[in-house]
């Protein structure tokens, strides 16, 4: 057992104290820097101490009331194949290459309880969340079963009840959150006979780990796995072998998973703000073009109508002209005819006057 009950309660008190202090700090920092829940707990796994006894697996199975496996926990032959966490095994111990002293290295794996969990960031119903004890816990009453958390987890930890047709759950280590709340320590830590697991406030564990590295520089690689991986994890690891060789990825980087998706997430609202403006603009322009071409068409028509009108007018005028001319001609003709007649008349009158012996009825007729 890593720490005694008394020590643990002391930690709780210390955690409460640091909480009060860091609240003010957080406020001062205007929420732009996130340091995680103050005084939250973690576990330090010193792989150099682990003997691969699988007691932690057994305790985990019991504490979480998982179904008993077919092969009993004291059968160490399962260590011959590499295993991962499963729906019925929240934690598994794996054996890796021989170390410098010819001893195999055992590494326990389980949920690392990230400070900024990728699974929680990926969950679209908030079924996974980081709580102030440091645990990343799961709420089956919200889970839809989309398994995006399993895609997101860089450590390949969450498992799924594939054989449950209607109410499958995501299954993963809870860091014994219910036990921590009761003042107990996680089952695996409690059961470890070699103190390979130490439970406590994460900040204190980091100090412990550094002290060990300093004290035994030959025994340890100068690196605390989990201090900054994916933004830091609540579980921390010490090793005598490069972490790559004991099945832990060294290429994860120090960015929390949430920062990978924050760009796309930030793009979404901007698109909603800009697209209506852009699209309405394009619509208005295409509409305007349509209107202009329509107007041009109308204008062209009216222009051609106007031109046609001119021609018509000219024709009319010409017609009128000819008509007047013809009329005039006709009048002239008439006038001339009348004049001629008058002339003839006067002539005949003169003749009649000159010949008075002519019968009077003729003159009467002419009148």
């Amino acid at each position, binding site marked *: 057992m890593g720490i005694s009950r008394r020590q643990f309660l002391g930690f709780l008190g210390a955690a409460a104290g640091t909480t009060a202090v860091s609240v003010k700090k957080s406020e001062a920092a205007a929420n732009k820097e996130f340091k995680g829940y103050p005084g939250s707990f973690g576990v330090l796994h010193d792989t150099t101490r682990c003997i691969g006894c699988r007691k932690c697996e057994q305790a985990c199975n019991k504490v979480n009331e998982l179904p008993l496996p077919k092969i009993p926990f004291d059968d160490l032959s399962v260590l011959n194949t590499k295993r991962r966490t499963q729906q019925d095994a929240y934690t598994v111990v794996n054996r890796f290459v021989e170390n410098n002293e010819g001893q195999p290295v055992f590494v326990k794996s389980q949920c690392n309880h990230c400070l900024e969990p990728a699974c929680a960031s990926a969950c679209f119903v*908030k079924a996974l969340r980081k709580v102030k004890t440091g645990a990343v816990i799961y709420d089956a009453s919200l889970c839809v079963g989309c398994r995006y958390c399993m895609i997101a987890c860089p450590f390949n930890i969450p498992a799924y009840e594939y054989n449950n047709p209607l109410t499958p759950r995501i299954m993963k280590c809870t860091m014994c959150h219910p036990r921590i709340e009761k003042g107990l320590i996680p089952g695996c830590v409690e059961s470890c006979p070699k103190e390979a697991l130490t439970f406590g406030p994460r900040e204190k564990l980091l100090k412990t780990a550094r002290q060990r590295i300093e004290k035994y520089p030959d025994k340890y690689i100068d690196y605390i796995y989990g201090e900054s991986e994916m933004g830091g994890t609540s579980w921390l690891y010490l090793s005598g072998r490069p972490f790559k060789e004991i099945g832990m990825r060294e290429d994860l980087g120090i960015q929390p998973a949430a920062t990978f998706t924050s760009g796309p997430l930030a793009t979404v609202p901007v698109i909603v703000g800009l697209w209506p*403006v852009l699209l309405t603009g394009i619509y208005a322009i295409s509409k305007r073009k349509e209107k202009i071409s329509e107007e041009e068409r109308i204008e062209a028509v009216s222009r051609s109508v106007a031109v046609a009108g001119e021609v018509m007018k000219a024709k009319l005028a010409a017609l009128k002209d000819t008509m007047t001319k013809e009329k005039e001609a006709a009048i002239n003709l008439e006038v001339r005819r009348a004049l001629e007649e008058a002339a003839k008349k006067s002539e005949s009158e003169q003749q009649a006057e000159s010949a008075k012996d002519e019968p009077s009825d003729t003159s009467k007729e002419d009148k």
Partner: protein
Amino acid sequence: MDTIFYTLQDFMIHSKSITYILIGGILIGLMLFWLFLTGRDEKKRTF
């Protein structure tokens, strides 16, 4: 607001939730504003 966020995750849940509501409002607001903007335009055939 004096909500204190200890994790980026909590902060993002908070800010994104507000943003999502906001963008819903912006979408409707922009539509209404467009109607206001073009309210006095001469009526034209929709199609």
